[in-house]
């Protein structure tokens, strides 16, 4: 193995380790819902290459209102899916789309784009 090969191998392995850590292992910030005066738990979510915030904590049994603002035109994020609540919604670009649901059971429920690539989690406590 010459020096270049050693450098390429080490850089390659380091990059691979970074990808694994960055996408799978690093901690994600969790956002809790804000309760409005009407007892509705509200969360604003921006959609741009992903959902931010993407981990949302809500309480069980109280209505939840998620407002998705899609800040891009990229077709990947044009559809929103909350399969556990049977919700499929088109998210128009540069507009806010409200999604309401009533979580009756505790657990973690995924929300994704139409093809399941962009992902977020709704944690019901």
């Amino acid at each position, binding site marked *: 193995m010459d020096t270049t090969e050693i450098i390429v191998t080490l850089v390659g392995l380091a990059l691979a380790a970074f990808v694994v850590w960055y996408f799978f292992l690093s901690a994600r910030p969790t956002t809790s819902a804000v309760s409005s005066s009407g007892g509705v738990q509200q969360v604003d979510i921006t959609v741009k290459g992903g959902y931010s915030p993407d981990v949302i904590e809500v309480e069980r049994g109280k209505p939840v209102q998620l407002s998705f603002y899609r800040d891009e035109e*990229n077709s990947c994020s044009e559809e929103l899916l909350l399969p556990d609540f049977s919700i499929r919604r088109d998210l128009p670009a540069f507009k806010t789309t409200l999604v309401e649901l009533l979580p009756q059971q505790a657990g973690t429920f995924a929300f994704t784009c139409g093809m399941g690539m962009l992902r977020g989690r709704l944690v019901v406590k």
Partner: protein
Amino acid sequence: MEPTTKTETLDIEGMTCASCASFVEKSLTRTPGVQRAVVNFATEKATIDYLPTQASPATLKEAVVKAGYGVTERDPDTSAADRQAEIDQQKAVAYGKLKRRFWVAAGLAVLIMPLSMLMLWPALMQQMNMQVLNYGLLLLTLPVLLYSGREFYVSAWNGFRHRAANMDTLIAVGTGAAFLYSLAATVVPGWFTRQGIMPEVYYDTTATIIALILLGKLLELRAKTQTSAAIKALMGLQAKTARVVRPGGQEVDVPIEQVQLNDIILVRPGEKVATDGLIEEGHSAVDEAMLTGESLPVEKRGGDLVFGATLNKTGSFRFRVTKVGADTLLSQIVKLVEDAQGSRAPIQRLADKVSAVFVPTVVVIAILTFVLWFDLAPVESRLPLALVNFVAVLIIACPCALGLATPTAIMVSTGKGAEHGVLIRNAEALEKAHQVDTVLLDKTGTITRGEPAVTDFVPAPGQDAGALLQVVAAVERQSEHPLAAAVVRYAEAQEASVIAAAGFQAIEGKGAQAVVNSQPVLIGNFRLLEEAGISLPPAVRQAADALLAQAKTVLYVAVAGQAAGVIGVADTVRETSATAIKRLQAMGLEVVMMTGDTPQTAAQVAQQVGIARYFAEVLPADKAGKVKELQAEGRTVAMVGDGINDAPALAQADIGLAMGGGTDVAMEAAGITLMRSDLQGVVTAIDLSRQTIRTIKQNLFFAFIYNTLGIPIAAGLLYPFFGILLSPMLAAGAMALSSVSVLTNSLRLRGFSPLPS
């Protein structure tokens, strides 16, 4: 004194589903001074009764805003249908942009490709300055990268910031790497030659990949819009205006949003019924195919229900509005189909798990491919080989096909089901239906019509059948008993002329009496005649006994103190039942019947329709138990029922099918609702489910096999044995084809048509 209330109607902005409406409603109801608030999601209107001393339009608006919605001044442009139109328009614009980007990329790629291949002709190459050619190619590639491919890079960057990776990440990293390498080879070729590497450029790879992926996206977008065509068609069925008859008799055309409960609406031949209601006057044949899949028009007269979006054929009628907006049957069907399309099938779980980790895993594989090629290939070609294979892995691994496999098939088939009157609650129900091996039918209302009908009309010797039927019908027309209704229907079907009856009197538990043609007439059970001291001649008695032996209900008729005949009434088997049951059996399913009737009646019906196994004398409470009994035998059971008392059994079954639109309770408990009262719907539902699951399995197989084979080949696994390497451009072509082929396969379900009855 009762305080005077005021009514205010507000146009609500921003509601996207029925629960939004309840949010707004709650907020309004809690506002001091509000006595009643009703929010209609479909019409996007709130009607509020309030005390003007405590509340004002301003405080009402405030309450709506507090709930997170807006109030607009009356503007017809904000209806749900219009918003859908806006989304469609936005999609059309996006499609147009994508098309332009594709043509720019394709046009330039067509120029770049032959120029890059000049090296294949050494004689030509010698006359060409390599440096000038490379700069020329760079200039041609830049617009492809910066205009056509821009979205990939922006999206990949946005995704990276959110720690999310999608298909754009793969394309951006792949084409970006090829471009940057080529850029370096163009700008500092000397560095490459000093390392003993030919300064090759890959502008053709970059441009072609972008062009091919855009082509794939274009085809995908076009196919995707077709998957939701059925639901759009359903939504488009709603009438736009209604002809309301004002109390003064004046007829006014009003927009459908302004129609209110209890309005009287006039429908003329050839017009659409505007909303759901009850016919008050007139009669007609109505085409309900759009809601029930029933191809024959249905006769409607006073007291019958009509539904919005159906088509009035022959006569004109007036109906009273009973439901508007989101409560109408059409809206409920649309909602149900939309919900089903948003649900996930269990079969998708594996694909979901894979796509969640897919892209980062592929990036890691691509990096390792690069390292291995760099370390193992001959020094002079290791960098280009490592790069080409790195790019090929990234490009071929696009998970589009995986992501599209299940949802597109479900979208098409739930829409298709709705078109044929089969409403599927969710993807899980669709998946369950194909596993069924036993169909349990509740006899009454499913195999049979569920209402009594005259099967035999036997006049006593010497009686004229036609005249007797007129007399009988004259009495029964005045009665409200279901058996009387059966007799009237029979008389109408025989076109017996209508004559008058006087002095009608119902005799509780026995029958009725009246005077027709100045002769007293008695119709009822045996006791009625017995107590009137009327004896039966032997012929009449014999006829009655024969009917009783067939488990039929017998009505005895006496005219002027003499027995005049008997009428056999029974719940009759639908014409389509036997054929449908035969079809189910031919599909390899065992059909079992259950009924509350006596074993004798049960046996007779079972034999008539070709069922070998049945449960008789089953009490309503025991129906679910019978389902459990079959399940204990290791069977996967589909239960078909139509009433409230079937709900526990429908819920207990592996899949419940509620029939005839069903009651709301039955619909709630069932996975599938059949809009038409006909067992043929069960055949259609199971057939559709089987075809859909087959399509999904094919799709998943293609998607998985394509990635599991494609990635190792792109990584160069075959090279040591066969010298085969996958060109990144071929990888791009294959990738574009994979999602298009999965979509095309799903769209084949659009050709589904139920077996003819």
